[in-house]
């Protein structure tokens, strides 16, 4: 029963109802159920497992009718008192927000079970939660799905926090007398089956809220409410002021997140979800959207299940700052839903894609990147089918326009998962020019040193020859020195730069056959690579530049090799970022390229991941005392490095957003049009927002204050033992991007 509550949350009212009915037959069984659930509830409270706590509490809330006195409202009040304590101790507290969310989401279930005699209780607690629910934290400015980068972008929807929205919806519901019209009412147990003379009331078991409250294994952040379909002329999902929007969403999202170990089951439950609410509130499954619109125009008050589902899954795919699971999980849920109910889900999904595509210019850039990654992966599971015809008009847009940039990046992503010829065969002829024929050739990219006219041509070929016959580090060194000498004679400012170029390009060529090949070539050349890179920062950046130049037609490979070089510390995070946002930036056109974002994003992720792992070590209960200073010192150093990295990124992007010297020059010389200049600055604004958020999230997790709080909690005793952010690291690791995902 507990397991069902935790894994299939949409069944909670029904499971609970069985316990309520049992009370009319065998009250002892109900008492035992309450006891067991309450014990587990207390446990989740102690561990800060908020999702589980919420669900178990919901089960108890659905038993409100068999409790004595105030029942659930006792614990809700207790929780609220804790919120007050937390908020008065720290105005930016996030645990309190989580608790308020739980309180608010529990109220309607309590009322469904408890009935009208508790309306006043609900009213009272709503009055209390109002201040907290309507408060905005500074962080919330950065977690909205949309951000307007220019003056003429149109915002699809305003920011709503999940709890702010809930508070308003509940208040409205209270004013309307708690009709809760979309929740199936609890029917009384048939009188003839009652076996007890007097209905037995149970007392709600006492709960202890630990002090200090254990914030739990996941980092908590305020939550933004995401919607795709709200605000349309004909709303296919519950409107934002309707409680159903939050309650149904919550139930779907929990089902997705709690059951991540079986996406097939999740999909099966999702497409069946209307059965667990008042079915008449939904249009028949798979109703065609045109038909649906007619029904609504005809006065029917109905929602479209498929739209609700798609929107709910996207809300998780688009959750900021971090998703609860690896993003690929949500990809797989969408795929499963499409497999199970293709004719119902696919059209809704198509409309979702069109909506997101339309809003790309104002969509948060990290989300645009997630969308890109999802889109390419999704269509790769469905024969790369998409109606590209719809977007043909956008081909005439500037390559710097977010929609055109998306089209180009999406095709590139599809090719990474497949091959160019195949992808070309799935798109209209008008688009074929975006996938040039040279990509079909089954051969390695040209080696520029094969051309005699290239400076250091002979040396480049010598290096390649040495790499191929597994030459020694001395062999490489000899050629590299020759290049340096020639370059010095010719007055090259940093003679190591052409040497780095030749060596890295030769490594790329020698290892062009596959990633394993390039890996073993890097391994062979690593001594000289490291020595070049450590001697000159310009040469270090040249190494990144050479990789990208060699693999210019296959950015996926380039990004992957850069990642490898970071692991070998041939490249440093700062070098990658300075190359991408410095040497490679040009007037700023590079910002429109998804793979540049990918390279920078992955690099930053690598840095933050490392810092998180140091925190895990620091907060490990069995960290030997003598290692503490070492860990602390590492943390302090790496934290500063990360801050420096973020500062560089933010400063560079801010500069560009506000004008940008190179861009201004290019504009005045006519090299970049005024319109393109505007687009570039809009990209800079969107980039800036992503990395500002990342920086703030890092401060919230690995900043001195955050770590101190965790350390204190650790010291507070074994009772409230925090499990440091394993979960979170896991989710972020593969996510968002992918130090890894290139």
């Amino acid at each position, binding site marked *: 029963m507990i397991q069902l509550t935790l894994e299939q949350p949409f069944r909670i009212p029904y499971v609970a109802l069985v316990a309520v009915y049992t009370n009319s037959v065998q009250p002892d069984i109900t008492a035992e159920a309450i006891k067991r659930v309450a014990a587990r509830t207390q446990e989740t409270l102690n561990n800060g497992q908020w999702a589980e706590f919420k669900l178990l509490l919901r089960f108890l809330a659905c038993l409100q009718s068999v409790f004595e006195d105030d029942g659930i409202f006792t614990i809700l009040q207790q929780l609220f008192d804790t919120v007050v304590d937390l908020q008065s101790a720290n105005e930016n507290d996030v645990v309190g927000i989580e608790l308020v969310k739980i309180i608010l989401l529990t109220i309607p279930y309590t009322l469904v079970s408890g009935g009208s005699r508790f309306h006043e209780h609900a009213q009272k607690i709503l009055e209390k939660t109002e201040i907290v629910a309507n408060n905005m934290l500074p962080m919330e400015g950065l977690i909205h799905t949309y951000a307007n980068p220019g003056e003429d972008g149109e915002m699809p929807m305003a920011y709503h926090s999940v709890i702010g929205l809930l508070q308003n919806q509940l208040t409205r519901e209270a004013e309307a007398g708690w009709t809760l019209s979309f929740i199936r009412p609890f029917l009384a147990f048939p009188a003839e089956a009652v076996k007890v003379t007097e209905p037995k009331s149970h007392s709600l078991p006492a709960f202890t809220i630990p002090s200090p409250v254990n914030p739990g294994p996941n980092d908590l952040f305020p939550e933004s409410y995401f919607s795709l379909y709200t605000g349309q002329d004909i709303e296919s999902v519950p409107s934002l002021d309707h409680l159903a929007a939050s309650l149904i969403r919550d139930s779907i999202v929990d089902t997705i997140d709690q059951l991540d170990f*079986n996406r097939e089951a999740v999909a099966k439950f999702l497409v069946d979800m209307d059965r667990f609410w008042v079915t008449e509130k939904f249009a028949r499954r798979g109703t065609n959207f045109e038909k649906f619109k007619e029904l609504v125009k005809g006065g029917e008050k109905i929602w479209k299940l498929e739209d609700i589902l798609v929107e709910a899954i996207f809300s998780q795919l688009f959750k900021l700052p971090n998703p609860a699971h690896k993003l690929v999980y949500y990809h797989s849920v969408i795929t499963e839903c499409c497999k199970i109910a293709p004719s119902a889900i696919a059209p809704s999904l198509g409309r979702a894609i069109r909506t997101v595509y339309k809003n790309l210019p104002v969509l948060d850039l990290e989300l645009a990147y997630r969308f890109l990654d999802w889109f390419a992966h999704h269509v790769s599971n469905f024969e790369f089918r998409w109606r590209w015809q719809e977007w043909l008009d956008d081909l005439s847009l500037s390559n710097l326009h977010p929609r055109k940039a998306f089209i180009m990046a999406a095709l590139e992503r599809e090719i990474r998962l497949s091959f160019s010829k195949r992808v070309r065969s799935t798109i209209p002829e008008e688009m074929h020019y975006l996938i040039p024929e040279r990509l079909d050739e089954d051969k390695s990219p040209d080696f520029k040193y094969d051309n005699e006219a290239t400076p250091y041509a002979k040396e480049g070929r010598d290096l390649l020859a040495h790499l191929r016959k597994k030459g020694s580090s001395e062999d490489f060194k000899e050629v590299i020195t020759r290049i340096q000498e020639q370059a010095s004679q010719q007055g090259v400012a940093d003679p190591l730069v052409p040497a780095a170029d030749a060596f890295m390009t030769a490594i790329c060529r020698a290892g062009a056959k596959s990633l394993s090949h390039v890996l073993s070539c890097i391994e062979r050349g690593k001594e000289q690579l490291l020595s070049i890179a450590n001697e000159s920062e310009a040469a270090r950046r040249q190494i990144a530049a050479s990789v990208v130049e060699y693999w210019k037609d296959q950015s996926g490979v380039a990004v992957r090799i850069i990642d490898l070089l970071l692991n070998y510390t041939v490249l440093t995070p700062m070098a990658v970022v300075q190359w991408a946002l410095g040497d490679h930036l040009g007037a700023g056109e590079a910002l429109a390229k998804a793979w540049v974002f990918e390279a920078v994003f992955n690099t930053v992720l690598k840095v933050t991941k490392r810092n998180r792992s140091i925190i895990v070590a620091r907060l490990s209960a069995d960290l030997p005392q003598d290692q503490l200073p070492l860990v602390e010192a590492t943390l302090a150093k790496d934290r500063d490095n990360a801050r420096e990295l973020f500062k560089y990124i933010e400063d560079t992007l801010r500069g560009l957003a506000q004008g940008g010297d190179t861009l201004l020059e290019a504009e005045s010389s006519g090299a970049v049009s005024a319109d393109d200049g505007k687009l570039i600055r809009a990209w800079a604004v969107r980039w800036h927002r992503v990395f500002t958020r990342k920086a703030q999230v890092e401060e919230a997790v690995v900043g001195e204050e955050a770590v101190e709080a965790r350390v204190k909690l650790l010291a507070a005793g074994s009772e409230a033992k925090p499990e440091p952010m394993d979960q979170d690291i896991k989710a972020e*690791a593969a996510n968002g991007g*992918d130090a890894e995902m290139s």
Partner: protein
Amino acid sequence: MPPNRSTVERLDRPSTYATSKRRRRYRAPDEHTRRPPSPDPEEKLKDATTLYVGNLSFYTTEEQIHELFSKCGEIKRLVMGLDRFQKTPCGFCFVEYYNHQDALDCMKYIGGTKLDERIIRTDLDEGFAEGRQYGRGKSGGQVRDEYRDTFDPGRGGYGRSMDDEGF
């Protein structure tokens, strides 16, 4: 808290192949050789970071595999399965992650989805060992490609033994 049984099947469990390996080893110990008992495979797989990936097309490249599998975490090593004689890809590979959890997530989120338009199969694996990258079929590829009587263009057409019999 002991782990509870889930209400639906978990997709991150090892297949019966891995468990059958256990049985073979457990049931047939030669009493005279007195080999020490092999470790419990459940135990061996409990920290597994490697996955066996099957049903790949012969034409699927390392880069494609990386592109998909790195969605579950950083890949430590990728070993392509090769035809024993021709040293060409023969439709399987081993993907090794840094973390056990990444391997489990891959079972849950990527196993049974498509790569290069084929439904791929993933299984937890005790770890790559030299030699395992080669097909064990008579003709050098995987055993399953010896006797297949359906035409699979991604895996060399008909089964190779079928060829001999005049298909």
